[in-house]
């Protein structure tokens, strides 16, 4: 239950920071996608189910505020959470920075989804313009923040596990 409320806090914090502070400021041209970082980190650290649920919640929040229909963002965040949960079961490498790899993959999935469903469907073909103008800046900003935030999430998870173990012992 404690974990649940911390998740709620993290998601709300990321959402508010991202949309109500970063995006509104005219000084920042591309906004890092904090909700995506949260989704793939939790998906990778905690597995499919938690990744999915966190993703769904993040996506629904984005839908509530900024999408013309509800469910558009929810679907891709849900998918990102699920995919990263699956990756954690299948694949790990120490040759590359794993969080960075996940970040690039997730952000790529996210942007391709929006391009295909939001832009290709009404005949916009100029992917060569969108990649440098829209996709790359976001991926770069998000990657930088991933390097800072992912270790914090790991610590948070370790802290949770220690608490859960302690309380389990107490019951025994």
């Amino acid at each position, binding site marked *: 239950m404690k974990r*649940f409320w911390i998740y709620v806090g993290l998601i*709300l914090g990321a959402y*508010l*920071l*991202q*949309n*109500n*502070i*970063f*995006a*509104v*400021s*005219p*000084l920042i041209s*591309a*906004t890092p*996608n904090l909700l995506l970082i949260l989704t793939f980190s939790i998906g990778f650290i905690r*597995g*499919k*189910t938690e990744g*999915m*649920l966190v993703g*769904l919640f993040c*996506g*629904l*929040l*984005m839908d*509530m*505020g*900024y*999408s*013309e*229909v*509800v*469910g*558009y963002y*929810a*679907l891709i965040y*849900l*998918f990102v959470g*699920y995919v990263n*949960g699956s990756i954690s079961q299948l694949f790990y490498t120490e040759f590359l920075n794993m969080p960075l790899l996940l970040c690039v993959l997730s952000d790529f999935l996210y*942007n391709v989804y*929006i*391009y295909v469903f*939001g*832009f290709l469907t*009404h005949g*916009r073909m*100029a992917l060569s*313009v*969108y990649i440098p*103008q*829209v996709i790359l*800046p*976001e991926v770069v900003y998000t990657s930088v923040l991933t390097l800072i935030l992912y270790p914090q999430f790991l610590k948070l998870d370790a802290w949770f596990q220690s608490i859960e173990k302690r309380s389990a012992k107490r019951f025994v």
Partner: protein
Amino acid sequence: MKKRKLPELRPKQLFILLASLCVILVVVTSLSHSVNNGLRGGANTFLMPLQKGFNFLGGGIFHQTERFITLKNVEAENEELKALVAELTEQNTRYQLQLTELEAYQDLLKLKDQYPDYEMVGAHIIGKNSDSWYKTILVDKGARDGIQVDMNVLADGGLVGIVTSVTDTTATVSTIINDNRNVGAMELTSQDTCIVTGDLTLYSQGLLSLSRIAKDDAIQDDDKIVTSNTSDLYLPGILIGYARDLSVDANNLTKSGYLVPVVDFTHLDSVLIITTLKETGAEEK
């Protein structure tokens, strides 16, 4: 609460279930305004004070930073002048439009005032869509202040966009620079029609696309482009921007070019929402 139930469903099944739920939501909310608004209600009402607070906080921080960067006095003066210019531009556009109308029809028909002063509600922008694909904004006025879906939104004396969904206390506005937005428009004096379309590839240059102008129409560069009488969503005579770089299309039947919007979309912090709907206006007459 939810967690207790989860182990019964395998992740894959849960994923398929939730994904289909999302797809159903997309379909239902794209068909029905009321379901769309209803679903958003709870979450946004709860979040609204938080969003406003964060926005205020962020605004405070960034405003200070910006002040250090730009000259304090110049900025203040500029702001004042801009407001004045916006007001005058808007007035001027309306007067010019009224005048043209008047000249054309005065003798033929005794037309009533066709462009009344629209009732407007001011609103602050409390959030913008963080992803660079979409240019949607969230404002702090909602159904309680009389805002409805499809109401027109202005700022700086020009058209900003249209309301796509409302909750009790907030409204989501899709701006005209959004890639999928089309606005039926016309040249102010000749009333030749054209279409203004948002285009993400032009966005970084601060332009919109202007198309479907008949080849022989009188629209020229730097002409004022306003919303058209024939548009089904936008009230007539709202300034959008100025035509630029018009050229004849390959089909030799139409002209197209770019439009420089009057609104500065990156520095928007408050907007005016016209509380008259296009349809309602027509029914009353």
